[in-house]
């Protein structure tokens, strides 16, 4: 909701806060402010110019050369291509150095041999309208040299309040008057009432209102006549003119010029003045009104009913709308003339030649309006307000205000009719002030609470002997229905800054989620041994769970594993670096959610089996480090495309590139802790040997390791993989062996014998 500061100031005359101070206060006490801006700032260096001479460009048919007075004796020569340029016009001149709202930088240029110092602008170029034909012609009274923003009334501070997140408070903050009331409240000032005129109940409208659905609580119509006095030419809107002409140069509809200016500031498109008036009422009061051309509405009855599936409505904008059961519609004797609360119909729209209008002010069910508007994607200003629920009382207020505004223009009220219930039933809430203090955690006195509630126009009663106060909210606060909702009002107006920050909480033992803790330990241990954590996107080309609205059309599934992302990450990063150690821990989605770990230890010179083995040994190290029994991993070594087992159960696998993936959700349930036991420190030294064996291409390191194990005596307590080297059709494996006898020192000869046995085995 955008609201000009001057409008707030009008309703709160004693306001002394500057716009900045006010925005700060609104932010702290009331609503979120999206932005504060001055629409006039976009038109810096654009001034009123007076065309003193127009001559055709000697080298171009379509161009003219204009001499434009833009200040004291300052005459600019400007080349202009607009057809509607005429001697004596007042125009908007963008001087050299100006930047227009469309980003155009004005510089001195030479156009076909003629120097040009500035630009005469169209309404479109000034960002005032979506399209325009020719330059904008300003009123003759506009003073030469004045900033155009000033002439157009655009030099204003606009405060844009975020209503999206406000919930049921949104309707209260979606009008000038609602915001002004809030400002008066938080600045402790008086709110000046709007000028109203009484509803002419005695003038009976010659139409009957029939409400046939409980989705419409209240419906009223006011007929106005006298528009025929004014000729309205809708073509005027498209001829490169701007709203400013409508009220200064022509005499079609004497609305207060401030209404037009306000709509211009809010960037509202120019319509028929009656429609503009309706829009203004909506912004000012928060009540949407719809304007029908009274002569086009047929028959004696106006019927509010629910549509039937398949009915068609011809909307104002020319669209044919297919209706569903339950959409609320307004009908005359022949057809649907409005989609209630959302959009009017084409057949009864106002335009040239409209002499009488019917003004609808009503209240419709917010849920239904929301449903219909969202389905049809018609989030009009009207629908946006209705869907957030509007107090029914506003319907009459809008009419009273509208009558007041048109009285001065000489329009006459012809008739009025209303039907339905125009009072909101507010629930009485019984509030315990001790609960207020306990909930907020501040010692706010009964008196202070009463003061705050009173300032909100809340009716407070306390019956004798009762601990609680009974509260009734004013009609415009539909959101106050529970104790906690009242507490919010008390807390924010007392001031969140005034509530003390207390950390008087009992110390308790924490007990965090096991899987989360395991994930943390795993991550930290992996980082310690040189792994870098990565995160990758969960979207995949294949999977079991399909995204109904995928963010990437080529990846409409949720991934079932991490291994592909890891392989891709290694591939992408391998161009920067020779060694990579990466891991990711993320959920994957088969039919259900599983937490997986992917690991990649890649080195440029290694083949995939080596990469797999390195990675696998890192995994075992980390599992051991966390305190689990890594010996239960059934595989001693792995290669690419192996399944990994723990306690005989499959828990992971390696892919062809040597990346490893482990299902943590499975593993964590079968991991067993290391049984730690002291072994006395060996008294005798170990003898260490490296041995290289040459084997055929088909043998794996695991096979060799197993073979060695079967050959050597139990004194060999460690066999470790060291290296692998491809040599034509055969492979050289290097292993590291350690031997020890617990009773005595081993001699070299004894160990050499064992090594010989191994070598003999592989030589044959």
């Amino acid at each position, binding site marked *: 909701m955008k609201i000009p500061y001057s409008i707030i100031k009008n309703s709160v005359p004693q306001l002394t806060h500057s716009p900045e101070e006010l925005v700060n206060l609104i932010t702290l006490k009331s609503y979120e402010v999206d932005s504060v801006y001055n629409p006039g700032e976009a038109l810096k260096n654009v001034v009123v110019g007076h065309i003193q001479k127009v001559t055709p460009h000697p080298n171009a048919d379509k161009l003219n050369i204009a001499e434009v007075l833009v200040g004291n004796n300052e005459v600019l020569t400007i080349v202009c291509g607009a057809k509607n340029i005429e001697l004596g016009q007042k125009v908007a001149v963008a001087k050299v150095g100006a930047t227009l709202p469309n980003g155009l930088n004005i510089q001195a240029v030479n156009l076909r041999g003629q120097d040009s110092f500035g630009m005469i602008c169209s309404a479109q170029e000034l960002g005032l309208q979506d399209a325009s034909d020719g330059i904008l012609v300003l009123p003759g009274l506009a003073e030469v040299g004045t900033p155009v923003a000033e002439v157009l009334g655009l030099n204003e501070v606009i405060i844009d309040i975020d209503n999206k997140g406000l919930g049921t408070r949104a309707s209260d903050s979606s009008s000038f008057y609602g915001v002004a009331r809030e400002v008066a409240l938080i600045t402790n000032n008086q709110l000046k009432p709007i000028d109203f005129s009484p509803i002419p109940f005695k003038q009976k409208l010659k139409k009957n209102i029939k409400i046939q659905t409980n989705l419409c609580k209240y419906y009223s119509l006011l007929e106005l006549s006298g528009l025929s006095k004014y000729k309205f030419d809708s073509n005027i809107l498209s001829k490169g003119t701007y709203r400013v002409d409508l009220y200064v140069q022509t005499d079609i509809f004497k609305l207060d010029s401030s209404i037009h200016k306000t709509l211009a500031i809010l960037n509202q498109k120019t319509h028929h003045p009656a429609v503009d008036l309706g829009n203004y009422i909506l912004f000012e009061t928060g009540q949407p009104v719809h304007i029908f051309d009274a002569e086009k509405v047929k028959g004696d009855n106006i019927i509010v009913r629910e549509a039937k599936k398949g009915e068609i409505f011809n909307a104002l904008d020319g669209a044919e709308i297919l209706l569903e059961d339950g959409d609320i519609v307004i009908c005359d004797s022949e057809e649907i003339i409005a989609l209630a609360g959302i959009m009017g119909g084409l057949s009864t729209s106002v335009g040239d030649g409209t002499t009488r209008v019917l003004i609808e002010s009503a209240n419709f069910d917010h849920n239904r309006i929301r449903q219909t508007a969202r389905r049809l994607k018609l989030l009009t200003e009207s629908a946006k307000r209705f869907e957030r629920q509007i107090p029914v009382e506003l319907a009459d207020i809008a009419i009273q205000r509208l009558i007041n505004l048109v009285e001065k223009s000489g329009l006459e009220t012809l008739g009025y009719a209303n039907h339905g219930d125009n009072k909101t039933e507010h629930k009485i809430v019984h509030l315990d002030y001790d609960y207020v203090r306990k909930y907020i955690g501040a010692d706010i006195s009964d008196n202070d609470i009463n003061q705050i509630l009173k300032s909100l126009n809340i009716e407070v009663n306390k019956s004798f002997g009762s601990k609680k106060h009974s509260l009734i909210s004013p009609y415009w606060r539909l959101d106050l229905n529970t104790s906690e909702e009242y*507490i919010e009002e008390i807390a924010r107006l007392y001031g969140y800054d005034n509530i003390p920050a207390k950390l008087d909480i009992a110390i308790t033992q924490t007990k965090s989620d096991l899987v989360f803790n395991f994930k943390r330990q795993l991550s930290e241990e992996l980082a310690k041994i040189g792994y870098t954590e990565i995160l990758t996107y969960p979207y995949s080309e294949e999977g079991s769970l399909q995204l109904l609205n995928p963010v990437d059309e080529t990846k409409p599934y949720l991934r079932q594993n991490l291994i592909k992302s890891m392989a891709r990450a290694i591939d992408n990063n391998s161009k920067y670096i020779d060694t990579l150690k990466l891991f990711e821990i993320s959920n994957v989605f088969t039919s259900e959610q599983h937490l997986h770990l992917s690991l990649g230890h890649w080195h440029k010179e290694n083949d995939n089996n080596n990469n797999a083995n390195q990675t696998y040994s890192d995994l075992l190290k980390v599992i051991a480090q966390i305190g689990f029994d890594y010996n239960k991993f059934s595989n001693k070594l792995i290669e690419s495309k192996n399944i990994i087992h723990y306690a005989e159960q499959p828990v992971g696998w390696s892919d062809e590139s040597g990346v490893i993936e482990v299902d943590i959700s499975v593993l964590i349930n079968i991991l067993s802790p290391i049984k730690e036991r002291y072994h006395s420190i060996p008294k005798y030294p170990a003898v260490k040997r490296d041995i290289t064996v040459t084997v055929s291409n088909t043998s794996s390191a695991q096979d060799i390791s197993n073979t060695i194990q079967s050959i050597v005596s139990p004194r060999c307590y460690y066999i470790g993989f060291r290296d692998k080297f491809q040599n034509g059709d055969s492979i050289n494996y290097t292993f590291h062996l350690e031997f020890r006898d617990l009773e005595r020192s081993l001699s070299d000869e004894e160990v050499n014998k064992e090594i010989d046995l191994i070598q003999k085995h592989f030589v044959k």
Partner: protein
Amino acid sequence: MISIEEVIKEYKDDKKNSLDIDKLEYKYLSRKGYIAELFKGIKDIIPEKKSAYGKKLNELKQNIEEYVLKNKTQQTESNIEIYPINQLDMQSNLGGLSPISRLIFKIQDIFDELGFSVAVGPELESEKYNFDLLNIPESHPARDVWDTMWVQNPAGIKSLLRTHTSPVQIHYMENNKPPIRIIAPGKVYRYEATDSTHETVFHQVEGLFLDDKASISTFKGVINYFFKELFQQDVKIRLRPSYFPFTEPSFEIDIWLEDKWLEIAGAGMVNRKVLENGGITDPNIQGFAFGFGVERLAMILYGIDDIRLIHSADIRFASQLGKIQL
């Protein structure tokens, strides 16, 4: 201040004139050298040009470093082998957590001191837990705020990827009795267009504190403590009114950093309807909940200028930030 272009020009000249390598190194790479000076100047560059400028500057730095290294190696006698130490190699050998994990663990440690345990919940959620039980019925306009990613299984059953970590509140209340003190870190998903500050998948930390006296005042105490510990300094914090269907009242939490207020978290006193939906009907039980975006916090803390880097799996990003100490 000297510009990067001027430095590049001078460097070229110095190379051409074969300036003594030690002098060159001092002139450009020392603590008071040109490169250091240019890095200091980054803060004055307009935000849109920062990353391009930084990139250019890093390239220049690397260029000079390589040149210096190469020439120094040549100077040294050939019987001593000198391996150029690639900076990236060094960093990757150190290993590290993603900035997200690091931050989440740090947050866990701070809240652990206050007696908060970590709870987790599923990323694959039902509409009931993600919306309905949090007092966001189908008809509620507030549903628009959460752009949902919908999921269908092979049997045609529809579910969704949680749009926030708040459903964990309900799961936890269903299985635990007050007093409750938890944080729930985890991934959340949104269907939206990405840009430098928006992602379709990111992380939140939810908090829930319920007992027989937890008030707005307690909340202020907890959140003040948290930010003080996180930033290791007194941080000015303010609450301002906001609206969330699952809290009443609701607030936004702003922190004062670099001369402006930054919106950092949403919070509020847990709505009675939500307590009831979680099975807590005792009127004496009350408390607060809060939630914040981990990426946003990480971006503020580490000066990351593009949220999309988090999921880029680019070692040039990942290896830098995992090791930043808070």
